């Protein structure tokens, strides 16, 4: 990418072209070996795993980014190893000057063009991936990247320091465990009762901030049954570190029986529950932290 045309005095131009060619060759070889290794060997192991369509999308995204950045790292590594070993002064007191190269518009143009193309590609690719299915990120109350078709609505309510879950299609049932049916499009509505939290279901590739007074919507398409980690990913006060849990994706039949059982467990308090809403304001004078 950066072949310095030799300018000014201070050496045989052909020698320096040879140096540049060596760097270029080493870079090409390293990139040609490194990039496939990154893509095929490291790529499938990149987080967050393939627990949902969105998570798999993130794995793909992470793989593409890592693969695109591999040649960049290779260039810098090759360049510095070469330059720092080849262009040494004889001693720390050797004050002989190098050649006074001050500029080279060819190198500059190529550098700007190539970085520009890489950046525009990455931005375009990221935007495309994002708009395809929302990538499991919180999209606020009016999402732009929707997943069409039938879906299950689940509300995630964060408070200091636990998550609870409401299922509006099952009479506003509120549970302390999160279970989701397999192979279903789930719409999570994340909100908070107090501080700012962030609902992070790692293997599902879901992360959405929980803000008081806000309905933060996430689309996630579950796949096979599995367990997933839930963490709070935004500092929310004293017991933030302990605000974690395990959720489950289960078969549809299992989910139905679980919901029934939960409805029975919480039947006695159902009448005290506030009506289902997109967000709630508890006692405004409540102070904690």
């Amino acid at each position: 990418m950066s072949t310095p045309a030799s300018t000014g005095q201070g050496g045989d131009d052909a020698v320096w072209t040879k140096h540049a060619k060596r760097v270029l060759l080493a870079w090409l070889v390293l990139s040609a070996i490194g990039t496939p290794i990154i893509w095929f060997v490291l790529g499938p192991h990149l987080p967050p795993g393939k627990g949902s369509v969105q998570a798999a999308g993130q794995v793909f995204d992470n793989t593409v980014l890592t693969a695109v950045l591999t040649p960049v790292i290779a260039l810098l590594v090759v360049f510095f190893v070469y330059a720092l070993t080849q262009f040494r002064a004889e001693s720390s007191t050797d004050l002989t000057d190098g050649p006074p190269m001050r500029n080279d518009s060819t190198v500059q143009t190529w550098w700007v063009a190539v970085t520009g193309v890489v950046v525009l590609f990455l931005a375009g690719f990221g935007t495309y991936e994002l708009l395809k299915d929302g990538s499991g990120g919180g999209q606020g109350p009016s999402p732009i990247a929707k997943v069409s078709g039938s879906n299950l609505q689940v509300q995630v309510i964060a408070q200091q320091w636990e998550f609870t879950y409401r299922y509006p299609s099952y009479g506003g049932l509120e549970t302390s465990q999160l279970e989701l049916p397999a192979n279903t499009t789930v719409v999570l509505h994340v909100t908070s009762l107090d501080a700012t939290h962030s609902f992070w279901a790692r293997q599902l590739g879901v992360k959405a901030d929980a803000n008081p007074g806000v309905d933060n919507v996430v689309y996630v398409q579950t796949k096979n049954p599995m367990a997933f980690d839930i963490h709070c990913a935004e500092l929310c006060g004293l017991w933030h570190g302990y605000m974690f849990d395990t959720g489950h994706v289960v078969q549809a039949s299992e989910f139905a029986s679980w919901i029934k059982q939960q409805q029975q467990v919480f039947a006695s308090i159902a009448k005290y529950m506030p009506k289902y809403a997109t967000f709630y304001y508890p006692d405004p004078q409540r102070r904690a932290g």
Partner: protein
Amino acid sequence: MSTVAVDVRPPLWRRLIGFNLLTGIVLGVAGWYVGWYLAHAISAASLDYFSAVDYNELSVALAYIFGVLGFLIGLGFLNYPIARLRGYPPSLREKETGGVGRYFSLCTDHKVVGIQYLIGIGVFVFIGGVNAMLIRAELLSPTREIFPAGTYLTIVGVHGTMMMGMMTSGILGPFGNYLVPLMIGARRMAFPRIEALTFWILMAGGTILETTIFFGGFPTGWTGYAPLNIEANVGMVCYILFFALVGISMTLLGLNMIVTILTMRAPGLTWTRLPIFVWGVLSTSTLMVLAAPVLIATLLMALLDRTAQTNFFIPSQGGSSYLYENLFWFFGHPEVYILALPGFGIVLELLPVFARKPLWGYRLAVAGMLGVALLSFFVWQHHLFVSGMNADLRPFYILSTELISIPTGFTFLCGMMTLWRGRIRYSVPMLFALAWFFNFLIGGLTGVFLSDAPSDVTTHGSFFSMAHFHYTIMGGLVFTFFAGIYYWVPKMTGFMLNETLGKVHFWMMFVFFNLTFFPLFIAGFLGQPRRVVTYPKNLQFLNDWVSVCAFVLGASMLVFIYNFVKSMLFDRVPAPANPWGSKSIEFQLPSPVPVHDFDRIPVFSGDPYGYGEAPTPVIVPAGAPAGRD
């Protein structure tokens, strides 16, 4: 000094009386109590309203504000305005001659202020570093707690806030103040008293942040998100006042730098001859002046929410937590470039000296810095990709964030092409400058994951982002800070630093910095959220590894302190005027630089990077006679 002079000096107790640090501390403490009782006089009736908290918050806030005022009065900041009101003639200088006492008082000599900054910031950064060690000690075990959860969060918060607040001035404070006037051929900064004020405000702020432990600490980390910062206990006021004071200090420091560079350049110092470090200072100062006032306003709103029952950030009362996030990151993202840009300047300033070649692509390097400075105001919502705020604007923020890598790439290209065919000497400052390339490469490229919204869902709020910004800030800023120390401290103090100990420090720091922070990317990928006191058991090995490496990294700082104290106080090897063979103007002056900098204002005929070119004299002595300001 002759014995006669010693006899003439008044006794020690007499010399301690006057406007100096001691008086400042005494009046500061007195002012604290004045504010405390004043606040109780104002709002004692409302004490019951705050039944859920232990203190009348207004009293704590006012106490600190009056304390800072008392401190500044004790240092003598009111003397000059009062003297002017009483008809005394204007004067630009204060306490510029004299002994060690200048370093403990209001002194308008930019060289004294530079050294004050270096030591003062060093002390607070050391405290921040000790906090980091405590964090890593806590994370040795996933379950066993050395500190209670609340104490742990305070440690995390003080570490982050102290580092962020102090290191914003980490390069502009010591090296900017000391070197910018020298590099542009001036004898002082444009506003010497404001220059001193920025330093003492910062010191008052640092002390206030430390005292948060007497008020229960604060649980919010350095970001201080609302509404947690409204709910939190009284220690939060210390955070708010610290950051507000840092904001005031930054704004004034930036303004002073901009005015100095715009108006006080010596004859012949055109924009294309300005040392690249000065360009780094100028672009950073622009960011400071435009971003820091937003921080001050935000924190004032938070303080009013806490003390005056306003509701800017309380959603249930019509406020918005998004408002805080927006305002904070509108400051916060330029802030991280305030941390990074001076580093760019130092690296590009040092490479030509140690590669014995002119800086390659000067205009491109300047364009890179200005481009980063400009773009940094258009990216802040990438911190809020999953917050649900303005979700349809995410593609714009993906693009604007990734565009920043283009001007950042300019810096890399200019640095790399300066090294190409050079005659590189591996002195300690050069080692630190070269390490910047490696660290900032990792930091920058991992930033691409965070700037890409789908990837950000994986990594946001995890140890990945924490490792990322430690690579950019510690790897980018702190390494160049040390490059600057090893490069310029001989000039500033007149004594060389020990080269061998310097190399030990460098290799320890570089190796263990990477061994500490690289595994944290993996910890983030494996699902460890930031700022947690506990973590999954399967991450214990990773965390223990990181903790042990972090302790060695901390020990490398002790090597530096040992080197610094030994070289400056005990060995005292005199530094030659130009230890590195630099063509920059400050190295054409004696070490240390005399009080009045130049006998004659220099005239510039070229930039300071003329290595290998016809030996043109950089400075032609001419112009104003000695002693004129």
